[in-house]
């Protein structure tokens, strides 16, 4: 018979099996023969998703609104299709960073911010608490219902049962004991609980079989299969209504439930615990992504038949649909099935309580209590010898705190709400983590401020749109708060914020929380900048699959490996520390000497080991403390780098300077050479000039002396001598004129009379000036070849005429005296004027081609040969041409005559040149 005694005995028996499984799992783990290292166990442990809410609540929800329970399981199926990407990425990130909870994950991603970790913990505790209460409520309700057998009576209000007779309290205490035993057996760097996972997988099997048993019993035992149940329901209009989506709340409800459960399957703390923290091997994901949805499908297969069976069985609405799983077998007097159903419900509830509590307790101790304690300097915690005991005490205290809080909540508030509504509230709260996590692993630009803003805003919106109304329903605050809005402000009504009505409360809350959460997360992230540590964490998270080695850490530390060892001893105990140091030695194939300075690799390793025990943010603080504050955070490191790069810049500048100096020295040396050369040229010039002057002076002097000393010289002879004197004097004058001319030109003191002229005129002038020369030398023939359409040139006409005269007289001087031919040619070449004078004289040797344009240089040796002309004609000509942008050159071979040519730019180009020259002069 089903008496309270039997039920309690069977329940205790079941729970002791659970303890045994967990104990066995832990022992096997200690022997390194894990029983959970299999994708099947992994998939079963994920099924902790199916709680008492699934077990009892789905039927209740189906009885009230048809298929509306399904999105809660379809959403996870969709998420799991992407699990190969998303979940595997989260697992990899968590393994690399030793992340042990969802709070740790968020804190670590956004720059190891302990504040953010604390916020996530608070949201999780406040948001998930009702969910734990839900499980406790389900156990006590189901126990109370079963206890009434063979009567089917709904239990009295829970609040009226004395506390000491309340099954929920005892279950809560047993669960706390389980969680403490198997959740905090030791502080492990990896924070994995193999025994617990084994127990959860076992529970998943039990609840599935129990539910399938009830389903098969109802569908095939009472009715003749699916067809009969539904056909009989279809006969009743009230039930036929449930066949459509309309009963399920329409599309908006469908979509919001799908979305919220898509997020929940990963971000609920207990799901994160089994999916990520307890994962043994990330390859298990591959099989689990279809095994877990298959589990969900199976456990939901009979929800509708049981719901309709219950509705057909109890048409009078006296029985709560949430209890159909129990009451339908009870009504048929199948005690064993009813008892098995109760055990199934118990297993669903306890599994959830255990994992959720351990997950929350880890968060509370690692992300809330420890950072606070470590920061309170007065406690001198960071100097305490052994922290393992304290850590375990905090963890255990947190477990008791979380479970008892859940119990208090259910005593105070749990009665007012149907099971499913409480569960969905928690789902929406957990969904607040989704943007920060999903954004965190996909978007490098997300900042800590963005995550803080999004989470806070989403959480506040959740409090306003779901938590406060639930208080109102429990009578804690006035009912009118929900109906009419606060102080009668209808547009602030928590179920129709800003007039957004027509949605059910969950869809409404999901909409507003997500608008605020995602909106602020993105907007604030875009407007703020990341610190260096945020940046490096962001890159590490997003690019986790691209990384091969551990992130390089730079610091100027003075800590030794022994310091690190002592630090780890305090938190995870000596044995584990030794073990993990040995593992490091094995993996890296190096020896760790306690006296040696700790390098980046071992510090990073130690930090990750510690992070497993006390959370990323706390581990960072501890490591920093042992490195005596000399561990620079990345900002500082960047500063060092900045300084270093500044130095590089300086040295580069120095290098540049010295190069410039070298170049300047080179220029100076060249200038010096040039000066020396000029000096030599001046000496040459003086000696040449003396020589040039001496020749005519000598002849003038000797002829004058002859005339002076010989008064009896004949008149004819005297006249000849005087003539020579005059000639030589003229020559001297010309020489002096030329020298002055050249000196003036070189000093830039010549007056130039610029005018645009026709080259032909100039040539005619020059020919007229030299006509006398040809008259004196009748054997020399002159030919002129002046082309048509010569460009006009902008020059001093007299000066250019002087050049042409020079060239012609040179030609006359050097051409063949007996059969001379001089050809004068002018043509246009590429817009410029080219003028040439060719003679058929002795020619000029190649090596003299340049020399002849220098002062006092004539082809051949002037000291021996009789000088012909002053030797200044060509240099002067070259100067003049240079002044007008022209050039002069000679083409000649000895014995084949010579051609002197010059080129002058057309008037337009010269004008430009002159303007430029003037501009330069002005600047100078």
């Amino acid at each position, binding site marked *: 018979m089903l008496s309270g005694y039997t039920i309690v005995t069977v329940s205790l028996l079941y729970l002791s099996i659970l303890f045994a499984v967990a104990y066995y799992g832990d022992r096997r783990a200690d022997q390194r023969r894990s029983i959970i290292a299999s994708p099947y166990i992994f998939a079963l442990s994920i099924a902790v998703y199916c709680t008492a809410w699934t077990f009892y609540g789905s039927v209740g929800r189906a009885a009230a609104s048809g298929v509306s329970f399904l999105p809660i399981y379809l959403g996870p199926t969709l998420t799991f299709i992407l699990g*190969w990407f998303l979940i595997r990425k989260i697992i990899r990130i968590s393994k690399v960073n030793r992340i042990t909870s969802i709070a740790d994950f968020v804190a670590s991603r956004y720059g190891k911010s302990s504040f953010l970790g604390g916020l996530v913990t608070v949201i999780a505790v406040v948001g998930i608490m009702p969910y734990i209460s839900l499980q406790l409520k389900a156990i006590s309700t189901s126990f109370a219902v079963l206890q009434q057998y063979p009567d089917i009576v709904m239990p009295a209000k829970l609040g009226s049962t004395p506390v000491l007779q309340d099954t929920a309290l005892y279950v809560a205490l047993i669960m706390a004991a389980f969680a403490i035993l198997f959740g905090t057996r030791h502080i492990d760097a990896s924070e994995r609980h193999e025994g617990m996972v084994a127990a959860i997988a076992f529970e998943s099997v039990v609840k599935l079989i129990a539910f399938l048993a009830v389903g098969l019993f109802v569908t095939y035992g009472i009715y003749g299969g699916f067809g009969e149940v539904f056909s009989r329901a279809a006969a009743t209009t009230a039930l036929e209504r449930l066949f*459509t*989506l309309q009963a399920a709340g329409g*599309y908006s409800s469908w979509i919001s439930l799908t979305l919220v459960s898509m997020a929940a399957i990963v971000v609920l703390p207990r799901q994160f615990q089994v999916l990520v923290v307890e994962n043994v091997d990330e390859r298990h994901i591959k099989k689990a992504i279809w095994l877990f949805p298959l589990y969900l499908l199976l456990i939901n297969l009979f929800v509708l038949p049981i719901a309709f069976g219950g509705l057909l069985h109890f048409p009078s609405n006296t029985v709560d649909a949430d209890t159909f799983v129990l009451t339908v077998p009870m009504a048929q007097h199948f005690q064993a099935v009813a008892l098995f159903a109760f055990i199934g419900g118990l297993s669903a509830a306890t599994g959830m309580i255990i994992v959720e509590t351990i997950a929350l307790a880890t968060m509370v101790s690692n992300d809330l209590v420890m950072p606070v304690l470590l920061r309170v300097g007065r406690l001198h915690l960071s100097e305490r010898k052994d922290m393992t005991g304290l850590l375990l005490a905090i963890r255990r205290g947190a477990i008791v705190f979380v479970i008892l809080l859940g119990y208090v909540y259910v005593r105070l508030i749990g009665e007012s709400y149907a099971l499913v509504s409480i569960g969905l509230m928690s789902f929406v709260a957990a969904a607040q983590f989704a943007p920060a996590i999903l954004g965190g692993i996909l978007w490098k630009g997300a900042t800590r401020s963005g995550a803080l803003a999004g989470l806070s805003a989403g959480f506040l919106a959740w409090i306003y749109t779901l938590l406060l109304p639930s208080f109102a329903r429990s009578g804690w605050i006035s009912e009118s708060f929900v109906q009419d809005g606060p102080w009668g402000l209808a547009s602030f009504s928590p179920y129709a914020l800003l007039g957004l009505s027509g949605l059910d409360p969950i869809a409404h809350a999901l909409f507003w929380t997500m608008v605020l959460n995602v909106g602020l997360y993105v907007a604030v992230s875009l407007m703020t900048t990341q610190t260096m540590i945020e940046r490096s964490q962001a890159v590490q998270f997003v690019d986790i699959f691209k990384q091969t080695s551990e992130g390089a850490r730079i610091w100027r530390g003075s800590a030794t490996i022994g310091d690190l060892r002592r630090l780890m001893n305090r938190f995870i105990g000596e044995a584990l520390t030794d073990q993990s140091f040995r593992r490091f030695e094995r993996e890296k194939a190096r020896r760790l000497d306690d006296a040696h300075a700790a390098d980046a690799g071992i510090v990073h390793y130690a930090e990750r080991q510690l992070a497993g025990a006390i959370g990323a943010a706390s581990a960072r603080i501890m490591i920093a403390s042992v490195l005596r504050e000399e561990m620079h955070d990345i900002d500082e490191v960047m500063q060092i780098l900045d300084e270093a790069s500044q130095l590089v810049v300086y040295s580069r500048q120095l290098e540049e300077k010295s190069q410039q100096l070298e170049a300047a020295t080179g220029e100076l040396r060249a200038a010096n050479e040039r000066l020396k050369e000029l000096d030599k040229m001046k000496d040459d010039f003086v000696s040449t000039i003396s020589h040039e002057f001496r020749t005519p002076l000598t002849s003038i002097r000797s002829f004058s002396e002859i005339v002076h000393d010989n008064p009896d010289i004949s008149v004819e002879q005297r006249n000849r001598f005087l003539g020579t004197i005059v000639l030589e004097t003229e020559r001297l004058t010309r020489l002096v004129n030329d020298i002055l001319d050249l000196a003036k030109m070189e000093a830039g003191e010549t007056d130039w009379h610029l005018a645009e002229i026709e080259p032909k005129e100039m040539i005619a002038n020059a020919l007229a000036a030299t006509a006398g020369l040809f008259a004196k030398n009748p054997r020399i023939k002159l030919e002129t070849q002046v082309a048509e359409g010569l460009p006009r040139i902008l020059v001093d006409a007299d000066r250019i005429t002087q050049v042409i005269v020079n060239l012609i007289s040179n030609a006359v001087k050097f051409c063949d005296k007996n059969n001379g031919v001089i050809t004068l040619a002018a043509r246009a070449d590429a817009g410029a004027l080219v003028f040439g004078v060719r003679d058929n004289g002795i020619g000029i040797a190649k090596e003299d081609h340049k020399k002849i344009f220098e002062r006092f240089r004539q082809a051949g040796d002037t000291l021996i040969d009789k000088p012909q002309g002053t030797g200044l004609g060509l240099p002067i000509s070259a100067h003049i041409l240079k002044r007008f942008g022209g050039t002069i050159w000679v083409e000649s071979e000895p014995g084949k005559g010579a051609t002197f040519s010059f080129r002058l730019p057309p008037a337009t180009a010269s004008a430009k040149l002159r303007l430029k020259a003037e501009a330069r002069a002005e600047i100078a």
Partner: protein
Amino acid sequence: MPRRGLTGERLVGLFLFGLLLLSPPLIGAFDTASLVRGIPVLYLYLFVAWALLIGLMALIVERPDPDEETAEDGSGADTDHPPTGDREPERC
């Protein structure tokens, strides 16, 4: 080498297909109160679609991905090319 073979792309495709199957407006097409072999059309559709997705997922991940696991024994369905002699010796 990132392990991103065909499996990943096929799963993304399946995810999109799943979104299509399990959300409005497509589910609306089955939103009638009529029965097929005694089972409401909407229920039947949802469970069949769900089972289909799970089946396809299993098919995708359990089948060796030619891009991803080339070292695996190539006894897959599509062996167009004859087995080559220089295959790596299998280690146990």
